[in-house]
């Protein structure tokens, strides 16, 4: 029992379960899943589908955070990648041509690699603090996305492209499979090779890792590239889900949700340790919370307040020292007189 309680996934899972339990009582339809022309349909499926881009971005963010870095530019990369893919497709004569879709996807992912590498170079080679280095692309990236779209919303009518974000494979949304694939890649790379250890050691102490023979710069560069790719794919999913690219609003504030998911998942912003599965749970918690708020009809004016209260509660529950303090207060209840005497004695 003690072991279970200490497990790093214990509290995130508890919170997710609590959210689902709340829905079970409040809106019983929440768990109903039906079949609709060949794919499953229900709130849980929605959470997975809409949560997919967030999970992807958060997976990339986890590795960056593990190196004691942070990537604020993911929201902008999401917008740029979606914009470039939609622009390429909209320029094509036959929007459903498979070749065109593949080219647009490769272009978008290629550009994401470049943008990720740009962040990585600024952090590793130029030695700029990650929060500043990625802030540059966060701000400039919105401009780039607007340049690509020309300030307009690009609409594409390509059923093949929209398959990425809203199609179904084996009755489940296709985007889930993309996420699972990326998660497996990340897990294998970090847990079955020594890369994970390198990332953690760089996060703890880059200089010491360099002395120990780890090319810290290469490790840092690679995590930012990976984060960029994750954000790029998330951008493809997001834009294909609505079959349009919106340079202004796509992926807006995504970086904050992603960082929150990472932190809820138990990864410390101080770097050195990371939990990919925890991050996935964290992202699911955020998406479940969003969907719950929509379903129970919280007035839009106070939606953010409700959200922040839940997040605050989540963070407090996860904090060891907070729990210890509460637990201590509960266990040692003193009467005023007793307190007085203790103070005098000590």
């Amino acid at each position, binding site marked *: 029992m003690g072991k279970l309680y200490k497990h790093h996934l214990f509290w995130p899972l508890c919170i997710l379960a609590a959210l689902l339990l709340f829905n079970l009582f409040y*809106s019983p*339809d*929440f768990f109903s899943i039906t079949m*609709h*022309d060949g794919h499953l*349909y*229900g*709130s849980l499926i*929605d959470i997975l589908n*809409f949560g997919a881009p967030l999970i992807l971005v958060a997976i990339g963010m986890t590795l960056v955070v593990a190196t004691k870095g942070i990537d604020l530019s993911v929201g902008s990369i999401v917008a740029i990648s979606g914009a470039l893919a939609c622009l390429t497709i909209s320029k094509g004569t036959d929007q459903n041509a498979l070749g065109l879709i593949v080219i647009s996807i490769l272009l978008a992912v290629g550009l994401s690699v470049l943008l990720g590498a740009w962040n990585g*170079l*600024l952090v590793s*080679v*130029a*030695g*700029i603090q990650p929060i500043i280095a990625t802030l*540059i692309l966060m*701000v*400039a990236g919105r*401009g*780039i996305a*607007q*340049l690509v779209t*020309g*300030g*307009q*919303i690009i*609409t594409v009518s390509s059923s093949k492209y929209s398959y990425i974000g*809203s199609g179904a494979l084996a009755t489940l949304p296709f985007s889930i499979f993309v996420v699972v694939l990326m998660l497996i890649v990340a897990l294998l790379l970090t847990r079955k090779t020594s890369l994970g250890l390198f990332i953690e050691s760089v996060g703890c102490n880059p200089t010491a890792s360099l002395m120990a023979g780890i090319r810290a710069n290469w490790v840092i560069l690679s995590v930012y590239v990976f984060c960029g790719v994750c954000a790029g794919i998330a951008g493809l999913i*997001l834009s294909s*889900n*609505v*079959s*349009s690219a*919106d340079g*202004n*609003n*796509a992926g807006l504030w995504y970086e904050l949700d992603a960082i929150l998911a990472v932190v809820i998942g138990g990864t410390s912003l101080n770097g050195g340790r990371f939990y990919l599965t925890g991050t996935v749970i964290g992202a699911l918690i955020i998406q479940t919370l*969003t*969907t719950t708020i*929509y*379903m*129970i*009809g919280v*007035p*839009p*004016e106070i*939606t953010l307040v409700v959200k922040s209260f839940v997040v605050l509660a989540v963070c407090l529950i996860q904090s060891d020292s907070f729990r210890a303090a509460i637990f201590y207060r509960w266990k040692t209840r003193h009467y005023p007189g007793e307190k007085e005497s203790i103070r005098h004695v000590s």
Partner: protein
Amino acid sequence: MKRIGKMGAVLALTLSMVMLGACGNNNGGNQANSGNQATKAPAANTGNTKEAKDITLGFSQVGAESGWRSANTKSIQDSAKEAGYTLKFSDAQQKQENQIKAIRSFIQQKVDVIAFSPVVESGWDTVLKEAKDAGIPVVLTDRAVDSKDTSLYVTFLGSDFVEEGRKAGQWLSEKYKDTTEDINIVELQGTTGSAPANDRMAGFAEVIASNPHLKVIASQTGDFTRAKGKEVMQAFLKANKDIDVLYAHNDDMALGAIQAIEAAGLKPGQDITIISVDAVKDGMQAASEGKINFIVECNPMLGPQLMDIVQNVVDGKPVEARIVTKESTFTSEQAKEALPSRPY
């Protein structure tokens, strides 16, 4: 090795500056439209009857954030050219300080009339006072300012968002005037706290209040975007079994919601009646396909009206303090007819 590292840092910094600079230049590219300005900028407030070619109009636009805004910019540029005025155009890229700078430079250049779409509502008193002291009349377009002193500007030309909401409500009341059962309405609001969202909601609520059968059962913000519109509509569809009407505060949210409705196996426009505001191209397209039943136009083509106001102001004729843009509404059939000739 160390030196290379330092050089790399410098290089990266330069690159980033070039990159940022390039973006700035490109966004500001619209300023080139100000073109070759008339050298003999006429002093303000002198002649009563001026030739059209002597009139200079300074216009500061919000930015180029949407198709609506681009159409708005184009309309103003085209109609200024048509009227023969010299237009000094500046793009504020969504920043108030850019707009204040632009207005100050218009004052220095002694343009005849300044027109602008304020990025935000507040904080304009000082710069408007400067324009007033310089004797240059100011016209607000599309968005209002919250200055107490209304003498700071001549007029406000723009849409009446409350009226747009009312029009949407009136069409719905008309459609369901004989109904005996409850009609469940869900509403997708614009960005919380924005004037269009507040006013479109208020106007709609005001009209449908007269019919007790029309009930708004859920109302949530979709931030004026397709992605949010889709996400919120999906949740609405799960939480409410019987939705009859969707009222979206702009076309983009309606378009997102249509995808959600289709994913639920329902027919947009038939199983769920859809009302929307804006009438941008994609929205009109959906309306012509019968997916949106009714669109209230929010007209960006206010160039011709603006030029009339400019002429009147320069001629010293009185101008009404509030001028509402001419706007119409479209049903599916009307949208089909109007679509080929729409400029945006």
